[in-house]
């Protein structure tokens, strides 16, 4: 159960042959993402994301903790990904697998290590208290390209999340309830996303946003983490067939274009949701609070 069912020979050969003719099973072009659907839950930082049939829920939460001794000025930020049998019957509940550690590694590299969330802004009182931000990624349906989808979902969640306001008064940390003070958005320094390329037919055909079947038929992959400004924060080629250097350069510009487009889609979804929230007004807002 720990592995996805292997492709049949017919499927593999057909996918390769189709790509040679620049065709994909769902009619997309090689550089086209599947339709992206982003919606938000009742709480801030609750994102439902669908990329084709891959479906992810991200929930961001915050709590006050003590900062680490060696970094008294920094808050904490963790991305938590645990794959369950819900996403794919190939994943066993409660048993970590390769996909999990791989995706976690990419998410950490692209979002956490690139300091997309400014952890210094999470400090409340030096060495005493800080915010700990936690992003929980729930993969509810897996049909390929988990890394890119998870990246989009986490970045959307971070931008959407509002933490309670906290101040230091007379050496005491006061955390205001959401009804007392308008909650605060997180300090996002830049918006990196990952774009994963899959290579086929001796790297002659390279595509983005592969479905599960395409991933299984692929010969190699290349992950590029890049932000809107074209600054690359992550690049890795974990395994598979060679891709020549010139190809990688052109793929980087494809990745930049994709990231700009995806970020624009995130912005649109965010604006629509914030407008909706504003429209629902204060009465509804406090209603939701009572509810909770």
């Amino acid at each position, binding site marked *: 159960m720990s592995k996805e*069912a*292997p492709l049949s*020979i*017919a*499927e593999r050969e057909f996918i390769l042959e189709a790509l040679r003719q620049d*065709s994909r099973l769902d*009619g997309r072009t090689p550089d086209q993402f599947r339709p992206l659907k982003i919606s938000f839950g009742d709480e801030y930082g609750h994102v439902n994301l669908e990329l084709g049939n891959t479906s992810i829920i991200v929930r961001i939460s915050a709590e006050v903790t003590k900062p680490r001794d060696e970094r008294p000025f920094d808050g904490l930020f963790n991305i938590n990904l645990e794959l369950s049998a819900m996403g794919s*019957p190939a994943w066993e509940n409660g048993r970590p697998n390769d996909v999990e550690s791989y995706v976690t590694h990419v998410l950490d590299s692209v979002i956490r290590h690139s300091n997309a969330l400014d952890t210094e802004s999470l400090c409340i009182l030096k060495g005493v208290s800080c915010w700990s931000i936690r992003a929980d990624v729930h993969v509810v349906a897996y049909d390929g390209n988990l890394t890119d989808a998870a990246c989009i979902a986490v970045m959307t969640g971070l931008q959407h999340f509002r933490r309670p306001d906290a101040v230091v008064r007379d050496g005491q940390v006061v955390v205001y309830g959401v009804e007392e003070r308008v909650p605060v958005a997180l300090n996002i320094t830049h918006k990196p996303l990952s774009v994963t390329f899959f290579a086929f037919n001796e790297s002659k055909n390279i595509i983005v946003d592969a479905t599960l079947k395409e991933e299984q038929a692929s010969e190699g992959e290349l992950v590029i983490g890049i932000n809107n400004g074209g600054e690359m924060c992550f690049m890795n080629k974990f395994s598979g067939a060679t891709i020549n250097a010139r190809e990688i350069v052109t793929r980087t510009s494809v990745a930049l274009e994709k990231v700009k487009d995806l970020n624009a889609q995130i912005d649109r979804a965010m604006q629509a949701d914030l407008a909706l929230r504003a429209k629902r007004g204060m009465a509804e807002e406090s209603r939701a609070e009572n509810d909770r």
Partner: protein
Amino acid sequence: MASPLVLLPGDEVPSRHLPSNKSNPLKLGPGLRLLSQPSSTSQNAQSQHVLTATQAGIVTTDAKRNTVSLLSFPNRRYIPTVNDLIIAQIHHSSVDYFHCMVTPHTAHALLGQLSFEGASKKTRPMLRQGDLVYARVLSIGLGAGAEVELTCVNPATGKSEPGGLGPLNGGMVFDVSTGMAARLLRASSSSSEQNESIDGLVVLSELGKKLESLGGFEIAVGRNGKVWIDCSNAGESAVKATIAIGRCLQTVDEKGLGPADQKKFVTRILREMKLVS
């Protein structure tokens, strides 16, 4: 079927819904079971029999064949049943058997090395891992953990009946829901020259008509939610035609398109793929 009768597990099938044909024994489809209840009210020593559902589904009856069955959720997992046609994937082979995958993450089914038309020790097909076969469920075994056995030949006649059983070469397999697979099987097995929709499906006949000029296509439907399509007659546009058929079937399945929408969608996809003008 104006107002369908939906049963949940534990519900009894009302006797007025049972076919009244008394000459044949009543046959039960999946999702139903016969329970005998010791009657407490009547003085009869004879126990009463009640039909109860074990799954949620819509009750359907066939008066001609005197059957009653339950239409359950179409996206459920396939469970092998004797005589079902399925598309299996070879996982590995041993001395006597090919071990085949019928649904992912379940035990392998066995397919005898000689269970092919005209197969002998010398002429049996050499199937590799990942090859596909169109097979029939021969037996599901008795008792717990019994193995499912498949065959590509009718043991009585030694022929591959119905036609087409055996290895599937080339082509492409698309996944659909088990409910859709059952509908497609009925639609493709009934006389094909009908213009009417069978089980609300016109997608196959529509595709057949539109792709006739390209040489048509071959299709094999497995009850386990797999559809194999081969358009090798279409020459250069074989790949595109196959993709178009696959997309049509999957979209009709996912979106539950009605007959009119199916026709529209087929036209749209074929135009998009530049297969017809």
